[in-house]
Structure formats: structure tokens, C-alpha cells
């Protein structure tokens, strides 16, 4: 409690004084963020983490293994029925036994998307003030607190506590402009560099899911979305990261245009207007906000880790192209 109060106090303080951020401090905080980004790709670990959003709390177990073949991960929920996510580099599979459903996201080419590599961090200082604050302790490990204070109300604030030796993010929080925590991830138990057998990375449902329904989403990173039939005006601080053609189960081919400010990403999905419309308007899930709206013959779905007002602003920046 005292700890959380300190953080909120820091954010309040910074509200008036961020302009005076010391450049040396900024460089130091940025170096830590680079370390965090690298750790997630280089360090093998296994642990238990708590995901907290709104009034909901959920605990999951995670196994993360790195070898010459890249990153291999499995996440299994510990509360309620077992649900799993298995990730091998860019390919992600979700197992939802209650719905007897397997969700597979597959990329039709090799290699990590270039824009996701650390250079993306370059946009950060334009939109956020990175601050290295104090040290803390999470899951028995000492960690360094790094804050990203947004320069305007279009973004959420971020908090990272990075393990001192490896940079592994042990606690990650997202704050809104009222300094409320919108979402948080925190390890409660962790073992770094542990031996993980391939068996631990295999889904519990590998066999039985053969009888389940499979939904596939896919895209080809070289299949650039050309004319999306819409013009999108620039939202401050958000730069275009990608524009691709993609498939989603039960939907016709659509375009996905991704914008990022270095920390948050927002996707705009543009697809032909379906016969039965889904729930329209705003929706939220943790730090993710969603806005759905029909526009002439298209449906626009905006999804991203930004405040509801920003998501709405981005949805409204999409307009029919003038012929």
C-alpha cells in the first residue's frame, strides 16, 4: 500500500516537473528499457504471475525457453478451468477447452517482424519521459523501477520493475491519467535460467484438441495492404508500423493497419460490412480498448493499449476516401 502510494505520488509530482527531466537520467532509463526488451527474448525462466485488471485477479504459470530455434513459451491459467497459450516465435496457439476451441495465429513467413525490434523504442522519448526511480523487490528478486510518464493524455503511463541482473520485467503496470492502475502483471514466484524440458512447453491439450474446432488467423508480412479505401489522418505521436492484408476466422479478407507511439500500439481493422453487425461502440479489456463502428460499406474495428478517448479519436480519423 505504502509502495503503491509512493508510485502515485511520483506520477503526480512528475505531472508538473517532467519538462526538467535530466538527459543523463533519460539515457539511463532508456538503457534499462532496452535491457527489458532484450531479456524477454534471451532469458529462459519459469514462474507464476498474477494478472490484475479492473476488479479481476487471475494467476497463471509461465514457461519461457530460449534456444537456437528462438523463443518457446507456454502459459497455463491456474484459476478456473485450465486454459493455455503456446507460443513458438511468432506462432501462437490458444487452447480454450470450455469452448472446445483452438485459436491459431500464424505468420506466413520466417523471422520476427523488423518493427518489433528494439529500434521501435526510439519513438518513446517523443511521447514519454522515461524515468529511473528506486529499486524494489518482486518475487524475491531485486529490481529497478522504470517509469514512462506520458507527455499528453493520449497515452497511458507505464511502470516496469526490471530484474537487476537480467532486465526481466518482474512487474508491469499501466496507469491512466487519474493515476489509477488499469492493468498489472506481477510475478509471485520465479526461477531464472532454469532447465525447462520440451515436455513442459507442450500443451496439455495437444492430443484431445484434435477433436476441437480450430480457428485460424493468419497474415503474410510481405502482403502489404495497398488501397484500403479509407484515408486515415495522423493522430499525434502515433506512427504507422505496418499495413497488411490478413484473415480472421469467419470474416472476409481484411486490412490491418498498425500505429505505434513506441510503447502502445493501435490496430485499425477495415473489413466489408457484415450482414449482422457485432456490438458497436466502445469496449474495454484491461489496458486494451476497442471501438467498433460501421462506415458506409465497411466496418472499422480499432483495438489498442490506449485510453478510450484515444481509441475513439483514431476510429474517427478513418474517413471514406474522396473519389
Amino acid at each position, binding site marked *: 500500500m505504502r509502495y503503491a502510494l509512493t508510485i502515485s505520488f511520483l506520477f503526480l509530482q512528475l505531472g508538473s516537473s517532467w519538462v526538467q527531466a535530466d538527459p543523463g537520467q533519460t539515457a539511463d532509463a532508456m538503457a534499462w528499457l532496452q535491457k527489458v526488451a532484450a531479456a524477454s527474448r534471451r532469458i529462459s525462466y519459469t514462474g507464476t504471475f498474477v494478472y490484475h485488471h479492473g476488479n479481476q485477479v*487471475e494467476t497463471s504459470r509461465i514457461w519461457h525457453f530460449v534456444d537456437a530455434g528462438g523463443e518457446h513459451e507456454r502459459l497455463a*491459467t491456474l484459476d478456473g478451468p485450465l486454459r493455455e497459450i503456446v507460443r513458438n516465435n511468432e506462432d501462437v496457439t490458444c487452447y480454450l477447452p470450455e469452448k472446445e476451441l483452438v485459436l491459431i495465429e500464424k505468420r506466413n513467413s520466417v523471422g520476427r517482424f523488423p518493427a518489433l525490434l528494439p529500434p521501435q523504442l526510439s519513438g518513446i522519448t517523443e511521447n514519454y519521459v522515461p524515468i529511473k526511480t528506486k529499486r524494489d523487490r518482486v518475487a524475491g528478486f531485486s529490481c529497478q523501477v522504470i517509469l514512462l510518464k506520458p507527455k499528453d493524455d493520449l497515452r497511458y503511463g507505464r511502470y516496469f520493475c526490471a530484474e537487476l541482473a537480467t532486465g526481466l520485467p518482474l512487474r508491469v503496470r499501466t496507469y491512466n491519467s487519474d493515476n489509477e492502475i488499469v492493468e498489472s502483471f506481477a510475478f509471485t514466484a520465479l526461477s531464472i535460467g532454469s532447465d525447462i524440458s520440451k515436455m513442459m512447453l507442450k500443451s496439455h491439450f495437444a492430443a484431445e484438441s484434435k477433436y476441437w474446432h480450430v480457428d485460424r488467423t493468419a497474415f503474410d508480412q510481405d502482403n502489404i495492404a495497398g488501397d484500403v479505401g479509407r484515408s486515415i489522418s495522423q493522430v499525434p505521436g502515433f506512427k504507422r508500423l505496418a499495413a497488411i492484408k490478413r484473415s480472421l476466422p469467419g470474416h472476409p479478407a481484411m486490412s490491418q493497419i498498425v500505429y505505434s507511439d513506441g510503447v502502445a500500439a493501435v490496430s485499425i481493422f477495415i473489413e466489408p460490412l457484415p450482414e449482422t453487425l457485432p456490438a458497436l461502440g466502445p469496449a474495454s479489456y484491461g489496458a486494451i480498448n476497442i471501438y467498433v463502428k460501421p462506415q458506409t460499406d465497411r466496418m472499422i474495428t480499432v483495438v489498442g493499449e490506449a485510453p478510450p478517448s484515444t481509441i475513439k479519436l483514431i476510429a474517427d480519423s478513418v474517413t471514406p476516401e474522396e473519389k
Partner: protein
Amino acid sequence: MDKISALVDGELNEQEVQFNLLHLKQHREYSETWALFHLIGDVMRDEPLLLRHDFTSRVCSCLDREPTIMAPRFTYKRVAGYALSAASLAAIAFVLTLVFNTDNPFHSNQQQVAQVTPPAPQPVNQTKINEYLMAHQEFSPSTTMQGVAPYVRTVSDNQENR
């Protein structure tokens, strides 16, 4: 690990057996170790291996395909057991609620804000939005920073209650 060994050898008391059996049901590694220990035992005792290695999974998948017959046999003792475990779960839930509420310095503040702000975004039908979440997630810098953890949103247990 030694608990499994003790369980295989029948060296645990009734309470420990109950606890470990529950654990077996919930954790695949645990149940695989259980099977492995039996296999080791069989080999050491030089007993013929009558069952194929995938016997359990094949029986389970056969059971899954069987129609469920709803005829529970309730005994007083069993009901008491359920009530007891429900009570302890409720206690844990209560403590958790306390912990997380006291940890939230914005709690009272949040309620004040709620009275003046316009209606908050509504949670959507998660099944429909899941695909979009997954499609978006891969491009999000949070995936670079945190790996698979943010994907937990797509399998959240609370999706349909919200």
C-alpha cells in the same frame, strides 16, 4: 517429487493422499511423473509391461466421447466435504479481496470519478473480439517487452462473466 514417490509407495496419510491426488489431476507434469514412477517400478520389479505408454490418454479420450450419465450418489459425508471446501475457498477469496483492495490506493478515488464521468466502455462479447485481440497482440510492443504474458487476455476466465 518425493511426495509422488511416497504416494506411489502408499506412505502418505489420508489427508496427504487427497491433496496429492488433487494435484495429480490438475498438473500434467505431476501426473506424468506419477506414470513414470509406476513404469520405473514395473521395470525394476521386472514385471511385463502390459499397457501401452499412451493407455491413460486413450482411456481419457474414450471417456470424453462417452455420454455423461447424471446420477450423483450423495452421501452426507461427501456433502459435508464439499461444504467445507467451499467455505475455505470463500475464505481465501475474501482474504484476496482484502489484499487487493488495500493495495489499491485509488479505490475511493475511483468511486468518486465514476459518479461524474460518462458511462464507461462496455465489455464486449469476448468470443467475437478474441480474434482481433490476438491479431493485434503480435504487433504490440508489450509482446516484445513481456513475451506471451499479455496474451492472457485472450484466454481470461472472466471473459464471459463481464
